[in-house]
């Protein structure tokens, strides 16, 4: 069992959800509430990571964040370190890859808030921040929690993008999925089996929680109508 890889995966998942969920709330709310030109294109763009092979995403990120790229060059100038083959690069990649997993449940949750409730909140004299905290967030939290669980577990098991962009540097980019691959390559099936079991148990628990949250969201919406 490669504890260092497991800890790195948990760290990567935590950073990703911490940065991605607030962003997904803003994007999901905007997509649910507002109609604007190019909305369908934006929604399609958000879904792209779902349909592209991870290696293709990894390739583009490698090119887009590499030292020769504008972003990669800028990051090296500003922070003195490159984005590829580095933990910070993995966080950026994980955020991009997981945007659909985060935005979709939150957008769906926002779409279930009836316009009557939004109108009533504004007419009650509540400020925008108060509406968000007192009305919207309690109503969309199952969606937010679903997004959080999905992203966390998805990052934990991410393989293709991580391998393409981060390689296999112990303590820096070697996540648990890479460690499993390494173990199999080295015929260490005990270790690979243990790590796979940990991921499997986590995935099943996460999906059970997500399903339960979705049901709760459905039940809540039914009572609003």
């Amino acid at each position, binding site marked *: 069992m490669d504890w260092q890889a497991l800890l790195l995966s948990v760290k990567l998942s935590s950073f990703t959800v911490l940065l991605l969920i607030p962003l997904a709330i803003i994007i999901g709310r905007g997509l649910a509430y507002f109609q604007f030109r190019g909305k369908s294109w934006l929604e399609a763009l958000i879904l792209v990571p779902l349909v592209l092979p991870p290696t293709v995403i990894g390739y583009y990120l490698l090119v887009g964040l590499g030292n020769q790229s504008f972003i990669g060059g800028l990051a090296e100038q500003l922070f003195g370190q490159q984005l590829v083959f580095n933990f910070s690069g993995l966080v950026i990649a994980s955020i991009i890859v997981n945007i659909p997993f985060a935005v979709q449940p939150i957008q769906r949750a926002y779409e279930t808030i009836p316009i009557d409730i939004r109108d009533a909140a504004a*007419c009650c004299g509540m400020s925008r921040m*108060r509406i968000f905290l007192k009305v919207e967030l309690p109503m969309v939290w199952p969606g937010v929690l679903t997004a959080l669980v999905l992203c966390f577990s998805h990052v934990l098991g991410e393989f293709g993008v991580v391998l393409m962009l981060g390689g296999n540097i112990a303590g820096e980019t070697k996540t648990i999925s890479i460690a499993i691959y390494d173990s199999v390559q080295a015929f260490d099936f005990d270790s690979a089996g243990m790590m796979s079991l940990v991921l499997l148990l986590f995935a099943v628990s996460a999906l059970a929680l997500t399903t339960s949250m979705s049901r709760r969201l459905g039940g809540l919406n039914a009572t609003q109508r």
Partner: protein
Amino acid sequence: MPHNADLVCDISQELPIPLAANFTCKAGEVLAVVGPSGGGKTTLLRMIAGLTIPKQGRIQCGDVLWFDSAEAVMLTPQQRHIGYMPQHFGLFPHLSALDNVIAGLDHIPKSERKQRALDWLERVNLHGLPNRLPAQLSGGQRQRVALARALAREPAILLLDEPFSAVDRETRERLYIELARLKQQLSIPVVMVTHDIHEALLLADKMMLISQGKMLQQGQPFEVLSHPNDEAVARQMGLRNIFDGEVVEQDVERNMTWFKLGEELIISDSAPPLAKGQAIRWVIPNQGIRFNAISSGRLCKSINKLDVMIESVLVMGESSRVIASVIGIGSILNADVPTHLVEKLALQTGVQTTIALKSEQIHILNTP
């Protein structure tokens, strides 16, 4: 907040949906905005609330200018300080009835909010239910929580969007009485959107008919019902007895007009400027038709008598709808007759009888 302040609204737009309205709603007055679904009623209410921005116009409440396209004034709903009850009440599902009312009380000190909310829940007869979630309340109770929330704010105006559409008939009738009682205590303009003419007749001091974004007519409800401007208004008011006629004679001094329906001479107690021989459209409400008792000959002294054949009788509780065709002309008349009279006069399908049209209820429509 300005109380005893009148609402003055004059707005218009073509896009995204055409809408034009120009009206005043005085403090203490209930204005019913009536019209079919999709006619622009809710959009108008949302514009008054500041939830939708009209393209042009001006909305003012007392001395406070809420919206003026020329002066680029646009107050938010929060700044307008209104009481708004959406069609489905808009209660926050995760908050108790009490917390829903408290949610509208940000403008008063925190220490006073709970007592104010409890007082209002008491006033709308929701004693003992403050801790229930909206899902645990009946439709009528939810409506009253929403009303309490809107009124507890001591708003400058009260906006009600189809306030009775989501409750059953029994609850609705109880709520009519409650709103009528509440109306006497309020000194703010109340704008109520409804598609139900009877609600407007029952509760409103003034009504405004709106259809396809256009304001068709406004005035006192019974005035609009008895004197619709034109055929579109008459149809919107649910009047079905609209017929052609030809002017025979007018006596402006006595305010009377004689006209022909087929070969029958009809007298109307109104004399709009018309020429002899002019083709007209005229209307009579369902309640403006009297039926003769077959045996008594009760209508022998009446004017505007017509022989009719009853086509159908539809009993609708205490009232019945009698549909009859005028013999020799074929025009179909709809009459609402108390059910006990239908039985007493033995009105049945296929029976020939005589009716009389009340001359004071015959209204000659304006022609475009």
